């Protein structure tokens, strides 16, 4: 069975990596590149925990083969902010109680960030619609929606 050499850019760093054709993008990120911020939840495209951007487009990395991302620029939660310099969404999720167990959080934040890029001044209903494919089993979503609304304001001002 074929193996493929991929040339990808992950969070600004160029990587060359050898994968088998059936490697999922989510497996490549977590198991080969050890970027474990991206989570594997349902692995059937339902929960959104594995959301990352590929060439600027938000995708579910469990529904994509690593070989499909050859030559692409990928951004994961690790590329969004750091402990020293939090992204406005990371800060607002902490401040507004958008995090409980934390498992859905990287996918939520990647989705919210992509959503705010296309809709910087959303209504609450639009935020709920935009996060419609990301499941959270702890918070009941209100904290998450509040956090996205707060971050939207901060990001507009920044």
């Amino acid at each position, binding site marked *: *069975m*074929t193996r*493929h050499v991929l040339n990808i850019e992950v969070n600004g760093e160029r990587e060359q990596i050898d994968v*088998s*054709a*059936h490697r*999922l993008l989510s497996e490549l990120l977590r198991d080969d590149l050890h970027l474990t911020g991206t989570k594997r939840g349902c*692995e*059937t*495209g339902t929960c*959104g925990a594995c*959301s990352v951007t590929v060439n600027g*487009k*938000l*995708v*579910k990395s*469990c*529904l*994509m*083969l690593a*070989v*499909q991302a050859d030559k692409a620029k990928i951004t994961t939660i690790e590329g969004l902010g750091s402990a020293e310099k939090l992204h406005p969404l990371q800060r607002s999720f902490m401040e507004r109680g958008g995090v409980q167990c934390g498992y859905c959080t990287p996918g939520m934040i990647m*989705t919210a960030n*992509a*959503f705010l890029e296309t809709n910087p001044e959303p209504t609450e209903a639009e935020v709920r619609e*935009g996060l*419609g*494919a990301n499941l959270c089993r702890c918070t009941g979503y209100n904290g998450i929606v509040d956090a996205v609304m707060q971050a939207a304001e901060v990001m507009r001002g920044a």
Partner: protein
Amino acid sequence: MHNFDFFKPASIEEAAEVLSKYGEDSRVIAGGTALMLALRQRLLQPQCLISVGDIEAMRGIDWDPGHGLRIGALTLHSEVAGSEAINTHYPLLAHLAKRMANPQVRNQGTLGGNLCYADPATDPPTGLLALDARVVLHSVRGTRELLLSQFLVDYYTTAIEPDELLVEVLIPPPGSYGSSRYTRFLKTAAEHRPLATVAVAASLDEATCSGIRIAVGASTAIPMRLSRAEKYLTGRQISAEAIREAAAFVAEDIDALDDSRGSERYRRRMTGVIARRTLAEVFGIEQEVGGEP
């Protein structure tokens, strides 16, 4: 998931060559959102995947007032939703694409892939049927064009041959069928797969309907046109009563599915309700709230 060979042809011709060699032992991958699930559940175990993602000739949306619209098979649902030409000339299709599935899948899934998978619980086939769309299939044996109604055969089954590739979707100019609407019914707001869909494109001559196409999907194995309701409305002065009657024909005439997602009776009733509401919107007719379908 089992391992497989992975080919990435650079042109339609090259892809057709690979397809003619592997046929049934291969599957074409575009966005992969549907195929990935089928592979993981071992519903499909092809020996190789043929990725068409690098084939530029299968991309793009081209509008021509004389010929209508060409949508490359690799066009993402989010690109359909954002296309100026589609928003201007086929608002039904743009509206449908803006809300189908979810944001991530709209950024990954392609129109061609969606049609080839022939999942009943999806949106594009119903809308495209009401727009009289055709698909273009290519193989080493040549190119052929099929009406969407010929292409969609049954539950998850199309008329595509194992060596063929769906390269583009063609839609005729809307002409006088300028009034159109699409409605999807979801059982719960959290579910992204519709239980019933209705698409209507109509031609209006003042208050008289001079031509109409009504398509229903998701509640049926494949989307279907409703000829009795269409004939009933054609040439008729439009009223709330006429719409109610036509919607009742729709509910009666569909070959409704009966499964764990919805019983036959439920699907018929909900299809009738959304057919009535969609027709009312198309014709600008006020409907009383809470009336019988």
